[in-house]
């Protein structure tokens, strides 16, 4: 495969700067993991929960058995947005990471209307990181109907953050490209300086509302500049090339749009873990899929259309059980990898918080007002782990007590960040979820 940045630099060598390894101080790290079609109650309820501290893991949750005491589960988190437009998951999708949001300029179809929780956290945690945020994703067909914006992550209204889908680009983003030719370095610097100056000059000539169109471009140029500068600070694992990185980017995109490739996603998870481990970022979003995708999991026998056949018709839950199992395996896999990394007197998992969410609690067109969230990690002791909270079913007597926005507040506070409410106020959410924080 023609490596993106290395071809950009005309033969520069992609190099992992292993000599730059050094001690990493204990810092909070956050991972948001998302997939589509719901952390469904139907499947979560297979686990027996006798009390918040007395529960038995079953079904896909058994992947977390080794980390049961580092696990926190919250079910039935209410989200008004999920009930909007007939409970269509895509209609309220971006809002699930916002707490709630009824209307974005009159429409509500996967348009990022404000900062999502991952990017809000990134803006706090990532100020000194080389990459403020790292968002990795799996390619899928975004052309279907409501998949308007192509991401569910955003820094602010109309400032979407798109996932990096190409593993080679992700690799370069994390580890950088080391330029060994001084002349090429200087040429590259001249070029990037020109581009940045050019964007800024044009930016100054534009009406205010139009300027944001250039701001994302400028930011991405700066990200490229940083990635080309390379250099990683932490103890970095060796991340080798995988077979799919030998293919051209269009081939990868084409192949993966219709079917999940477990090797691909495992590699992206490895890259994400490495980015945290190496200190390239403190905030990672793994956006496997979201909303109205057509992705299939053929390797696991899920050859039916993920959107129509699984999202609409999987009454017995046979296929979603496999899909959730796949994701639970990867969430647990990433957590274990970081737990295996010594840091300070403990491991990287001590300061880690990992939040697994989905688009909703039910089907593609139903149950999306009742979300669930699964946290792994102790957040430096700020979370009461080893607990399973089953809040009152979807529209209980006082949903404000367990609004989804409160879960986001909980996440932020578990990372030591100051946040009292989140979202647009559609669902009142003053403070964290009851009984979750230490």
């Amino acid at each position: 495969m023609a490596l993106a940045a290395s071809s950009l630099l005309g033969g520069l060598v992609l190099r992992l700067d292993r000599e730059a390894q050094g001690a990493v101080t204990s810092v909070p790290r956050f991972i948001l993991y998302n997939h589509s079609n719901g952390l469904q109650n139907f499947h979560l309820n297979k686990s027996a929960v006798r009390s918040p501290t007395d529960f038995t893991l079953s079904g896909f949750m058994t992947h977390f058995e080794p980390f049961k005491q580092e696990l926190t589960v919250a079910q039935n988190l209410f989200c008004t947005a999920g009930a909007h437009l007939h409970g269509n998951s895509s209609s309220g999708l971006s809002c699930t990471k916002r707490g709630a949001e009824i209307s974005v300029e009159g429409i509500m179809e996967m348009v990022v209307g404000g900062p999502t929780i991952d990017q809000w956290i990134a803006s706090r945690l990532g100020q000194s990181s080389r990459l403020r945020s790292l968002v990795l994703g799996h390619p899928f067909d975004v052309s279907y109907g409501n998949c308007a914006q192509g991401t569910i992550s955003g820094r602010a209204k109309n400032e979407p953050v798109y996932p990096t889908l190409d593993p080679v680009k992700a690799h370069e983003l994390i580890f950088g490209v080391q330029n060994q030719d001084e002349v090429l370095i200087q040429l590259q610097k001249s070029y990037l300086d020109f581009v940045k100056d050019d964007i800024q000059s044009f930016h100054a000539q534009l009406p205010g509302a139009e300027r944001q169109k250039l701001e994302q471009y400028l930011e991405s140029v700066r990200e490229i500049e940083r990635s080309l500068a390379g250099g990683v600070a932490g103890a970095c694992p060796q991340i080798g090339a995988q077979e799919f990185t030998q293919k051209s980017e269009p081939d990868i995109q084409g192949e993966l749009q219709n079917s999940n490739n477990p090797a691909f996603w495992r590699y992206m998870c490895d890259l994400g873990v490495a980015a945290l481990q190496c200190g390239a970022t403190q905030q990672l979003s793994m956006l496997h899929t979201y909303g109205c995708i057509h992705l299939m999991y053929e390797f696991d026998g899920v050859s039916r259309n993920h959107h129509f056949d699984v999202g609409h018709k999987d009454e017995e839950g046979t296929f979603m059980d496999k899909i959730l199992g796949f994701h639970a395996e990867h969430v647990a896999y990433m957590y274990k990898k970081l737990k295996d990394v010594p840091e300070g007197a403990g491991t990287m998992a001590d300061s880690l918080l990992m939040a697994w969410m989905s688009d909703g609690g039910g089907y593609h067109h139903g149950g999306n007002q009742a979300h669930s969230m699964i946290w792994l990690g102790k957040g430096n002791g700020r979370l009461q782990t080893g607990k399973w909270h089953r809040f009152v079913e979807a529209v209980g007597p006082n949903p404000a007590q367990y609004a989804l926005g409160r879960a986001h507040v909980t996440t932020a506070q578990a990372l030591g960040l100051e946040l009292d409410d989140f979202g647009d106020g559609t669902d009142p959410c003053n403070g964290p979820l009851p009984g979750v924080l230490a």
Partner: protein
Amino acid sequence: MSRQHKSSTLASALASAVLLGSLAAGCTGNIDQGSASAPGSSGVGGSGTSPGGPGAGGAGMSACVGSTRLAQRIRPLNSAQYGNTIRAVFPDAGQLRSPFEVSDRSAEFSTNANLRRFDFDTSLGIMTNGQTVAEASLAQIKASFACLAQSADSNCSSELVKTLGRSLYRAPLSADQATKLSNLFEAGNKLAGPDAAIKLVVRALLSSPLFLFHRELGQPSAESGSANLTAHEIANAISFAVTNAPPDALLSQAADAGELSTPAKIREHALRLLGGERGLTGLQAFMTEFFRTRDFVKNDKDKTLFPLFDSETRSQALADFADTIAGVLRSSEPTLASLLTTRKFVVRPRTAALLGWSDLQNLSPDGSTVEASEQGRAGILTHPVFLANFAHANETNPVARGHFVTSNVLCVDIPPPPQAVKFPERTNANDGSPRTLRQVLQSEHSMGTCAGCHQFMDPVGYPFEVFDAVGKLRSTDNGLPIDASGSISGAGEIDGPVASAQEMLGKIAGSARAQDCFAERVYKYVAGVDASPTLECSTSSLKSRFREQQGNVLELVVGLLQSPEFLAREVVP
């Protein structure tokens, strides 16, 4: 069938296509009571009325409230415009990436001014393309600027940056821009010589927002709060609307000379380009997105049921589709009505085999124009590309076909599917007797809340049931005779029963509602806008003119480019 060889092919214009998938599959859940229980109008005007019912807001009842002008803005090139602009300047550009491919698909039309991603991947793709073009075109540039061999010739390098900048920025460079680029050249020259300097400048130009964005900022006009597009902005708009590529030499010269200040001059150049070799490319690009055929070649079917529907056949059919449209637009009646009712289809050998048109012999590999004689085969919506595009892999999908016509051709808004929707499986009747798909859908969708939306879609899709999932004419479904009757609802003046697809498309073709809807879609594509509260205002004059001109598609585009609504911009702070 009569046959004649067509004069030209526009197949390449539709070579990269995308399928937007099935639109509406079905429903069994609850539709939100009240606001969404019936579709509404998107504000399309017309002469009919359905007071109190669906579509009542259309049919001439929408009030125009707000500005008729677009705001000052910049608009990113889409993938095709990006590639075409590079290749117009650098014919030897090499193999390019499509950095905007994903965002091209994230709005109804890829020309939308507000949906474009410039994230890490996109920007890296832009930069990588710059490197590719610089390497591949170095020899071409050096041949054109032989004086660059004299490394100290600053006049030559200055000429280089001005020439390339003029072409890629699609406007003359300002003195400041020229100076910065010349300085960049000099820096590269000092570091690594003239070749490196040339490549540096090319890379910089291809990463510049002045290249990547259309400028629609204008200059202040006498009218307060208004700005008129500059001559170069107008030239850009004309050229991309008509040819999907940057202005040619004559148009550029006209812009440089300030000759595009009158509607007559704009019309002159638009018509000149429309009559040229690339003249329909812009309209073909619109049609590709309008009919959602970008991914058609990937639209595979059940190989057991449709063994002839292989990738080569799909490619030929797609080329036929484009050529059939081009045939209408090149005819003496380039109207929407002709497009929706034409019996002249361009056909290639594999398409003919797919459709069972065995009486056609010696078809040209580049397509031959034939007169379809099949009952019901009339208009572009009976072309196999449309019919197969809106069908399942193993059977038809009258819901999707009906949904497209209702929502995209008639601009009746259909709410998204409700909760827990299920697409009905083909099952036998309770007594075990077989049923047609229509009978299954009628049974499922006529009950309860499903009928709220499906009454508007399904009866429009049923007349297409005479065509199977690849568009071949058939007389039976599941061994039972096809009922090709249907009805139109929610569209005002043309509401009512129809006996066949041909009758239905005839009614639609002659309707003001379809003309208004099409005019609105063309406006959204050319102007790069999405649905907005001011859309009705922005398009009301355009719709009136389109109706007055009997739905002449070419005049629609030319008229839009000439219109004061398009040429003047609202000044924004």
